[in-house]
């Protein structure tokens, strides 16, 4: 009896694994298929490095690639240290009760729809950046990066916090027994032993920053040009897809968004694989 049940469960789990794996591949195949006319028309090189000027028959997505990378890297660079600090405070340094309530607030933050962040950005952040950035609309790379860093921090904080809590208790006892201060315990013992969780949290946050559409659409300014500084208006791949999707289905303009999708997809995979490779290479974990 038991073994039959076990076999059924095992098969069901295997099937769902295959399906979810296959769906990811199918999506990629679909995007490739849809982008095919454009790829046939111009060459791939031109699409990846050209400028966006549909009137002039140029469907290059380089500006969007650059701005996606700029915004997501910048937002992770801003929110990573903040998140490490927050989870350190919540889990180790701060008073226990305060830590618990802060954690609850962060949990609530993860559930806020991104459109709210965009909205808040328009009214609070854009005017400030407009002042500091010396003119312009205030909608720029840095505006979107700052707002996105607020958006992705909760994910990182909770993830880091969980991995801090999984550091084995004997390590903590040993460290306490030797007279380490709370900060020393965090820096020398907890963070090094939570490295794996920290890296995975980083990957998730990066993916979320890269994949987010609304914040960039609302406050990055949307001009399809390679940003020259962090105060320049710009357009991400995701915002580009959202803007162009209203175009005629048969047009090459419309087909170009599938190229954007493919690039996004490849970036996301490259980041995950790359970070895992570099982070776990030397210790032979996984």
């Amino acid at each position, binding site marked *: 009896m038991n073994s039959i049940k076990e076999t059924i469960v095992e098969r069901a789990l295997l099937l769902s694994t295959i399906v979810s794996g296959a769906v990811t591949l199918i999506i990629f195949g679909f995007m490739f298929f849809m982008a095919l006319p454009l790829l046939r028309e111009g060459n791939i090189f031109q699409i990846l490095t050209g400028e966006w000027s549909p009137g002039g028959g140029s469907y290059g997505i380089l500006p969007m690639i650059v701005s996606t990378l700029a915004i997501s890297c910048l937002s992770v660079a801003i929110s990573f240290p903040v998140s490490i600090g927050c989870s350190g405070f919540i889990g180790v340094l701060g008073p*226990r009760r305060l830590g618990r309530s802060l954690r609850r607030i962060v949990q609530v933050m993860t559930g806020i729809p991104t459109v709210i962040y965009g909205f808040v950005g328009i009214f609070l952040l854009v005017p400030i950046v407009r002042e500091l950035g010396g003119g312009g609309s205030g909608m720029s790379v840095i505006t979107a990066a700052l707002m996105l860093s607020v958006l992705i921090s909760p994910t990182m904080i909770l993830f880091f916090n969980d991995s801090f809590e999984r550091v084995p208790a004997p390590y903590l006892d*040993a460290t306490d*027994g030797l007279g380490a*201060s709370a900060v020393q315990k965090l820096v020398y013992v907890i963070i090094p032993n939570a490295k794996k969780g920290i890296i995975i949290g980083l990957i998730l946050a990066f993916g979320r920053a890269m994949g987010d559409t609304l914040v960039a659409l609302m406050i990055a300014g949307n001009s399809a040009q390679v940003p020259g500084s962090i105060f320049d208006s710009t357009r991400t791949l995701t915002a580009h897809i959202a803007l162009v999707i209203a175009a005629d289905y048969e047009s090459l303009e419309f087909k170009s968004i599938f190229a954007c999708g493919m690039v996004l997809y490849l970036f996301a995979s490259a980041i995950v694989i790359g970070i895992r490779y570099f982070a776990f290479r030397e210790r032979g974990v996984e």
Partner: protein
Amino acid sequence: MNTTQTGNIKIRVTNLTFSYKGRRILDGINENFEEFAVTAIIGPSGVGKSTFLMTLNRLWENIPEAQMSGKVEIRFNGGLRDIYERSFSSSRLRKLVGTVFQKPNPLPMSIFRNVAFPLKLSGEKDKGLIAQKVEGALRKAYLWDEVKDRLAQSALALSGGQQQRLCIARSLILEPEVLLLDEPTSSLDEKAAEVIEDLILHLKERITILAVSHYLDQVKRIADRVVQVDLWQVRK
């Protein structure tokens, strides 16, 4: 039972009461511990032997819903000092009062870095001095000859007995005046336990030792004095 240092009190506990989640575990304990002696703390499980040790190094302060009242004084630099005084930090206390736990708890790093870790915590940068102190501590813990050729290897690869001696070496490197041992041999085999007992007898020349133990024959071999925790409550 008596030692030559009779009368030289190292630790004085006055009216110590400890409760956890509202349940009273230690109740009004008064006790003195002599310098350079091994005191064995015995009693059935769950009477608060380990808890008692935690009131001497303040490790209980990490436990939520734990409460303590009373006074614990330890003699440092000639005078008895209240270890719960505001100006006396727990980090400073724990550098003077070393703790060895029931299960060996080396950190996931090399043997050398484990023993040198307390020096890192106190900000020591002189590499020559660190190497010298690590060797000294490992020698004192009877471990040097076994590990001198593989100091860079992970401490987690050592046997249980070696790990426990490594933990003792790690405590000794700060030259503590008191060493608290919480059933230090209970997870080890007989032979490894013997080495540690021998080590304890050797260490008491310089250090005041309090050891929780389950084994009466072990207590007989190492202890200058025996304190039975379950009788504390009655005696009050």
